[in-house]
């Protein structure tokens, strides 16, 4: 145990006011306001469990409040698998302190020592049948005070809810068609808007005939500012009709030239870059290099492809106050960028969260919020709802960045690794709003006086890294050098997509290791275990291997592969074993995963995240690639950008290793890298071909076979 002075958890230190997290009502309710938002990951339920547990109230009394800049703690962005880590720890500490505050007040009121009081579903009672409650004391106790470090949460053994698979609180609404999504939310007097985006990448709007759009029944307004143009109508169908009319009257100047999609590595390695040495390790004694192996791995641009197109609503009060409803992952960060574009003080902008469809990173949720604010300005104080088209959702939002990863290993005479080198060429993986001096919202680039297009950057390694996320080996190689080359041009817009660079880096590392092990004739699981000291790492690999009966006897047409990573090198441990069938095409039959997230708040929630991540990763690996020609993104529909279908989804088994004594971390991004590598390694096991360019399709298999000796 450390003797250091206790500190507040990260989010609580940033938002210490207890009342910003928790409020009690005299009617027997407790209101919990986290700064993190529901994006389909079940966080709201897990946070309700933590609060109910720590306060000793029935979870049915807990009302979770959606994040809003009016009242919620500012927890930045809901991303990076940090919600349990940030919000969960903050809530647990805040609730622990609040519980003590109420116990002390109850002790005063009841004249009984606090130590003999107990709390059951909010009722505080003690010997001699004395009792009061949170609800009775609520009016007398102000939580408008700052949290103090050192509040002691309940001992693990006394947690009744955290650690149990509580049912998600949002699911009944969703099966009974009760309005929960922003898409379904009605506001009085709501108008509908649509924005016209160019087909060619970053084409400029140079001419616009508005007459036909103005003639559409229910027409309210056309808004034009530079290349930004949109319509507002009384009805959604009217807005669609007006948009179609506007498009017919538009003239565009030629846009930017896009790279050659058939050779992404050549493009990535030919651009001006900013190079950073991410990490080096020098050997305690020099190894004897006998030879060097070098391989290159490529992943394409990947689309978020949320099942719902992005949507937002906005309403102005007068000239200078606007209220925005959004499914953004960060209400405060979005507000910052809206303020820059709208040239308003942030206090004049309210940003309120409403649920959208599953969100896997920085998708157009933020862009459409600015669209709505710009269109609503012409709506005479009425609210305007803007929804993107499927095509715009697939072509104009930010993508997960393409990556070329070169890995080299110096091997000694026995084939043991003496030095390891890993170099990444990629656009940055982060251009979220609210973090730079210029906004990163799409319409901001289109205005008559545009903001410069932000070239995506990378968070530092201390924040988990960007392109370089998971590039530092988790294995005990004696020496290494890790470098990242961030492109300074950005013809294809990129930003944060689930795992940032981790999927590409884990794919490269774990496939290269597999190749080295195979050259040595060593079992890939044994090889990994031999190079790992961390027992939690070894445990997930052994657990997955055991559950998958590693390694099952070879069957013609089948193959097995393994992949492992600890997400961000500091987060969840995950090992995956893939079973595939392969001939001309690859079918993933089964994925067996083991995961360690430390304390598990909601076991079924963790399994759901890992299972979903594994299936999404399978989709990325087998199907996904943003397509483009030299003028435009062409993968603008589900036909052009197919994802995994029900009949193609593998069986998924997840084993969760519970470690109640270790602070919890998130589960949402742990599976992607390991699953990607496990599938690629299984393809080699089955067909004897190393596919190093994702996705693994019939075409990439043939190309890899042609390259094989």
């Amino acid at each position, binding site marked *: 145990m450390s003797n250091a002075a206790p500190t507040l958890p990260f989010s609580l230190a940033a938002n210490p006011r207890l009342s910003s997290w928790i409020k009690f009502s005299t009617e027997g309710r407790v209101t919990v306001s986290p700064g993190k938002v529901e994006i389909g990951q079940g966080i709201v339920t897990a946070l309700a469990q933590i609060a109910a547990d720590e306060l000793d109230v029935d979870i049915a009394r807990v009302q979770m409040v959606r994040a809003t800049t009016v009242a919620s703690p500012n927890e930045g962005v809901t991303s990076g698998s940090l919600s349990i880590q940030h919000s969960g720890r903050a809530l647990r500490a805040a609730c622990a302190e609040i519980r003590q505050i109420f116990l002390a007040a109850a002790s005063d009121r009841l004249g009984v020592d606090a130590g003999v009081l107990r709390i059951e579903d909010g009722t505080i009672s003690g010997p001699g049948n004395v009792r009061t409650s949170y609800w009775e004391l609520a009016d007398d106790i102000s939580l408008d005070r700052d949290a103090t470090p050192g509040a002691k949460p309940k001992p693990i053994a006394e947690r009744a809810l955290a650690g149990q698979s509580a*049912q998600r609180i949002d699911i*009944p609404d*969703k099966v009974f*068609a009760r309005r929960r999504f922003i898409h*379904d939310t009605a506001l009085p007097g709501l108008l509908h808007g649509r924005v016209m985006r160019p087909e060619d990448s970053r084409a400029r709007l140079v001419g616009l005939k508005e007459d036909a759009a103005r003639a559409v029944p229910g027409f309210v307004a056309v808004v034009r500012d530079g290349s930004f143009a949109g319509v507002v109508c009384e009805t959604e169908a009217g807005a669609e009709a007006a948009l179609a009319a506007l498009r017919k009257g538009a003239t565009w100047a030629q846009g930017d030239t896009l790279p050659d999609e058939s050779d992404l590595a050549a493009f990535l390695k030919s651009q001006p870059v900013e190079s950073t040495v991410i990490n080096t390790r020098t050997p305690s004694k020099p190894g004897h290099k006998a030879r060097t192996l070098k391989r290159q791995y490529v992943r394409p641009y990947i689309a978020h*492809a949320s*099942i719902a197109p992005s949507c937002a609503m906005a309403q102005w009060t007068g000239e200078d106050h606007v209220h925005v409803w959004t499914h953004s992952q960060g209400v405060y960060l979005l507000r910052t960028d809206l303020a820059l574009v709208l040239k308003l003080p942030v206090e004049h902008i309210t940003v309120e969260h409403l649920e959208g469809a599953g969100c896997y990173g920085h998708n157009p949720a933020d862009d459409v919020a600015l669209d709505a604010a710009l269109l609503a300005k012409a709506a005479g104080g009425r609210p305007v709802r803007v929804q993107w088209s499927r095509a715009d959702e697939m072509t104009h939002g930010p993508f997960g960045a393409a990556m070329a990863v070169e890995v080299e290993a110096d091997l000694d005479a026995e084939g043991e690794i003496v030095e390891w080198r890993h170099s990444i060429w990629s656009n940055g993986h982060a251009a979220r709003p609210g973090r730079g001096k210029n906004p990163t919202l799409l319409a901001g680039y289109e205005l008559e006086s545009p903001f410069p297009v932000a070239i995506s950057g990378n968070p530092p390694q201390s924040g988990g890294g960007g392109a370089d996320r998971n590039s530092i080996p988790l294995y005990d190689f004696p020496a290494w050098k890790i470098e990242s080359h961030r492109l300074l041009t950005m013809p294809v817009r990129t930003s944060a997509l689930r795992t940032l660079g981790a999927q590409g880096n884990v794919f490269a590392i774990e496939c290269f290791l597999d190749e080295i092990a195979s050259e040595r004739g060593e079992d890939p699981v044994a090889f990994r275990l031999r190079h790992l000291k961390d027992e939690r790492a070894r445990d997930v690999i052994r657990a997955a291997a055991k559950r998958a009966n590693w390694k099952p006897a070879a069957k013609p047409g089948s193959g097995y592969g393994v992949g492992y990573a600890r997400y961000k090198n500091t987060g969840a441990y995950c090992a995956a074993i893939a079973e595939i069938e392969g001939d001309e095409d690859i079918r993933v039959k089964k994925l067996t995963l083991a995961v360690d997230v430390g304390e598990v708040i909601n076991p079924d929630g963790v399994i759901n995240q890992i299972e979903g991540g594994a299936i999404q990763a399978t989709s990325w690996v087998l199907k996904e690639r943003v397509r483009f020609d030299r003028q435009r993104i062409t993968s603008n529909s589900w036909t052009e950008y197919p994802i995994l*279908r029900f*009949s193609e989804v593998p069986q998924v088994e997840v084993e969760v290793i519970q470690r109640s004594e270790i602070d919890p971390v998130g589960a949402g991004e742990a599976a992607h890298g390991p699953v990607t590598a496990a599938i690629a390694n299984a393809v080699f096991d089955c067909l004897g071909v190393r596919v190093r360019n994702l996705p693994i399709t019939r075409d990439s298999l043939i190309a890899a076979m042609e390259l094989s000796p």
Partner: protein
Amino acid sequence: MPIIRFRLNGAPTEVDADPDGSLLDLLRGRLGLTGPHFGCGAGECGACRVLVGDHAVTSCDTPLWSVADKEVTTLEGLGTPEQPHPLQRAFIAEQAMQCGYCAAGILMSAAALLKQNPSPSEAEVRTALDRNLCRCGSQNRVVRAILRAAAAT
């Protein structure tokens, strides 16, 4: 515009609307039923599926004229919290979603399947849902939920 008559969630319904307009626009717009969701507008994702008779159709590309005199059922008409459809009960029991945006259409595809085949095999469930997309990766839970609902009826 002509009057189009059909039954909606059991109730006789009459609208004065463009017969070539989409059923989804009418349901979500004038009729205020937000159970069916817009996903793509091209019949590719299935988030907007509703029952027309015993068949699940993509309402985004179903013209209004084609439902004249038919029985249309949306998620709102499937069941209620007081009287849930076995599928609704099973989706809760299996926690068969992450974001749940696609679930509205998936529930309707599943309802059509169970009307036509009350005891489907797992493979039959997957085939029946192949035109419903889920991006969060909840497919296996959905399949389990549908098999559970089938077993319960």
